[in-house]
């Protein structure tokens, strides 16, 4: 398992939610390789499974969700050494499969190896403790964790200080655990994330912070344990655009400074372009196209990628009529998903071949460029195209006829002209 410098290798990851309606395949046999020190973006619309993927990696899936299958190999020689004895199968060279080690070991990695930041920073702070106290506590927990040798025993002991606790900030107001050193470190962290006057700010409560400041403080909290991998789930979505720019600058600077790896989850292709080295486009629980920024933005093959890019109104220069993707995100209910390309019901190029679920094919461009679409291997021909209503009317809302500019003339304006003064309620006939 060597040659590139991967820090994370996710194989065949499946995360399911067991709901009243049935089994939801939120993440479906997902593969992911993330190199040490890169910023990897996962972009997708709501329901694509991008956040569930992120949460699966850091083991934050709650019932009714469950990781049902897969391996998450993490490169950490030291961890590999300590785990080898107890679970030899979970180790391969310097890699450890996080899904085969004990939950306690997994938990111990949160904060020190993996950290996560979210869209909404309020969830990461306890409103009744000062920001400084909470950061100092985070520092303290990480100190203890790294002071303990990584034995399974020690892990279990420290579980009570786990990242999960920090995350929910249900931690007891336990100043007695916090040393002066941790307090100083907390202030350093606030300074690191660009909070002006950190000494003063450390003594304030979360509600005294603006949204942008609290976002910074959450980043400080996530950095307390000097994690190798930072998972950022829509970190700027709730922010105004000038504040978003500040936070992206900050993440960029911190990444350069610390060399940490970032897995960035976003719906915003602009944020991807600003931050990422490589990107995967997610749709219906799968990565449908991935590669370098150039591969995906300039050289994409998948009609969904094309549709996403065609949907964004341009800031510089008008781009005429937008070309949206028709229809809606599909149901991910297992019993409703067919074994075909999941995009076929919305794809303008759907063909007979697409009724077999396509694997990931290599595509032109960089070596990293792959695409889950038959168009990587053949070109579109009308002869093989599926008939227009192949998937039934239900899946193609009539509304999208208006996406075609030439459909809106004709009988409709007549309705307006006839329904002026004398005609009641806009009735035309």
């Amino acid at each position, binding site marked *: 398992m060597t040659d590139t410098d991967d820090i994370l290798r996710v194989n065949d990851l499946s995360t399911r939610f067991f709901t009243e309606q049935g089994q939801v395949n939120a993440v479906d046999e997902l593969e992911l390789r993330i190199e040490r020190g890169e910023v990897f973006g996962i972009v997708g*619309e709501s329901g694509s499974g991008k956040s569930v993927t992120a949460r699966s990696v850091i083991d934050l899936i709650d019932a009714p969700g469950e990781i049902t299958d897969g391996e998450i190999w993490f490169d950490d020689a030291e961890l590999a050494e300590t785990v080898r004895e107890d679970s030899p199968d979970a180790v391969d060279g310097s890699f450890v499969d996080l899904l085969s080690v004990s939950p306690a070991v997994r938990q111990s990695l949160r904060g020190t190896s993996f950290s996560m930041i979210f869209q909404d920073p309020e969830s990461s702070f306890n409103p009744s403790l000062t920001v400084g106290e909470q950061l100092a506590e985070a520092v303290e927990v990480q100190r203890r964790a790294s002071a303990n040798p990584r034995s399974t025993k020690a892990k279990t002991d420290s579980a009570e200080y786990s990242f999960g606790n920090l995350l929910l900030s249900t931690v007891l107001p336990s100043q007695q655990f916090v040393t002066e050193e941790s307090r100083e470190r907390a202030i350093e962290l606030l300074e690191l994330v660009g909070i002006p006057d950190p000494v003063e700010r450390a003594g304030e409560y979360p509600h005294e912070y603006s949204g942008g400041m609290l976002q910074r403080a959450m980043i400080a909290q996530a950095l307390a344990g000097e994690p190798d991998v930072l998972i950022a789930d829509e970190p700027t979505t709730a922010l*105004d655009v000038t504040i978003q*720019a*500040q936070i992206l600058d900050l993440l960029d600077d911190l990444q350069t400074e610390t060399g940490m790896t970032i897995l960035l989850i976003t719906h915003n292709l602009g944020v*991807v372009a600003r931050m990422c080295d490589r990107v995967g486009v997610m749709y219906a629980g799968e990565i449908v196209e991935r590669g370098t920024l150039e591969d995906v933005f300039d050289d994409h093959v998948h009609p969904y990628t094309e549709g996403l890019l065609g949907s964004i109104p341009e800031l*510089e220069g008008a781009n005429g009529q937008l070309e949206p993707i028709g229809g809606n995100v599909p149901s991910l209910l297992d019993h409703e998903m067919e074994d075909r390309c999941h995009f076929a019901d919305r794809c303008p190029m759907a063909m007979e071949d697409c009724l077999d679920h396509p694997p990931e094919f290599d595509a032109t461009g960089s070596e990293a460029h792959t695409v889950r679409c038959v168009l990587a291997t053949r070109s579109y021909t009308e002869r093989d195209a599926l008939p227009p209503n192949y998937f039934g009317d239900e899946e193609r809302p*009539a509304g999208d006829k208006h996406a075609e500019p030439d459909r809106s003339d004709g009988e409709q304006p007549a309705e307006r002209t006839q329904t002026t003064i004398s005609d009641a309620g806009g009735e035309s006939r």
Partner: protein
Amino acid sequence: MSSDDNRATSSADAGLVTGIGTDTPDGEPLVRVENLKKYFWENDSLLDRLLGDEPVAVQAVDGVSFEIHEGETLGLVGESGCGKSTTGETLLRLQEPTDGRVEFGGTNVYEMAGSDLTAFRRDAQVVFQDPFSSLDPRMTIGDIVQQPLDIHDVGADEERRERVRDLLERVGLSVNQLDRYPHEFSGGQRQRIGIARALALEPEFLVLDEPTSALDVSVQAQVLNLLEDLQAEFDLTYLLISHDLSVIRHICDRVAVMYLGEIVEIGPVEELFGDPKHPYTKALLESVPRATTDERERDRETLAGDVPSPRDPPSGCRFRTRCPAVIPPEELDIDQETYRELMTVRERIESRDISLETVGGDDQFTVEDGSIPEADVPSFVAALKHRLFDDPLPPHHDEMCLRIESTAVNRV
């Protein structure tokens, strides 16, 4: 949207969908907003008054003026708290203004009564980000779209139902979904329903308040296209309120940029986006990450700091606390960058971001009545600078700093 007095007065023109706006002579704007103000009062409850707390004005909208011409789309763009939504609601008279006037088709909206007001309520409609937040979730979408027709008593029953079917079809929903409930629809479909409802009374003017902000980008594109089609088809005039500059650019003819309750720049979209004049407009445009591969190399100047509170907006230019281009007063012989830093310090002291009590070591300075003894001023300034600037300023600037900062100190 509609009030009871509409119901009372509308029977007079039942079946007549006329618009007061149609009387507008050529060249006159459909909507004219003059010096519109909307303040909200905090600490204004009886209890607050008993406790002697002074009411605090939140200057949500503070003197905006603009015109919207028939058939055009004016964009109102700005960050949260800039007052753009309040402007939209106030000009529709969904909120009473604090001051200023709004004319619709030449008539003052705030003086309308009776059939004029009813006609205005028909002619001017609104689409919100979530069209159902204010509606009964137990209404079917057929009822929801038909409700305005019922309230305004337009047409006979069968005609209303026919009209609802036409509308739903027009916005791209199928007629057999008429009896379903809002929660059964996706975000994009719900927004289509909201649009159908807004169109039911054949309005001339629509305020679109963040109509696509809750939608995924592919669905947003569908709705934007629909709005464009409908505008062309029904000669609609739009006021589009959005925080999304790309959406504004795509849809609008002209755009007004708001900051802290004021319009800082207004102009044709091409001009304003191509050659923004106001430093805030520039910064706003530069802040948007572009979805292109050269985004990482793009030169961008981002704004520092947060938007100040509209409870206590900065004196003078409201943007001065963040403006990268702020100009030093003539009598100060100081370069622009240094002045920017000094302004930032002053702002931070004024906003009590920096507490003067904590300058210097423990108890090095005693702050009494918000001021420090004259004799301590030079060392105080030195300590403050030490704390705030990474690089010490050249000695030449000491005197300047002293002047500006000591005024600030005295004011605190």
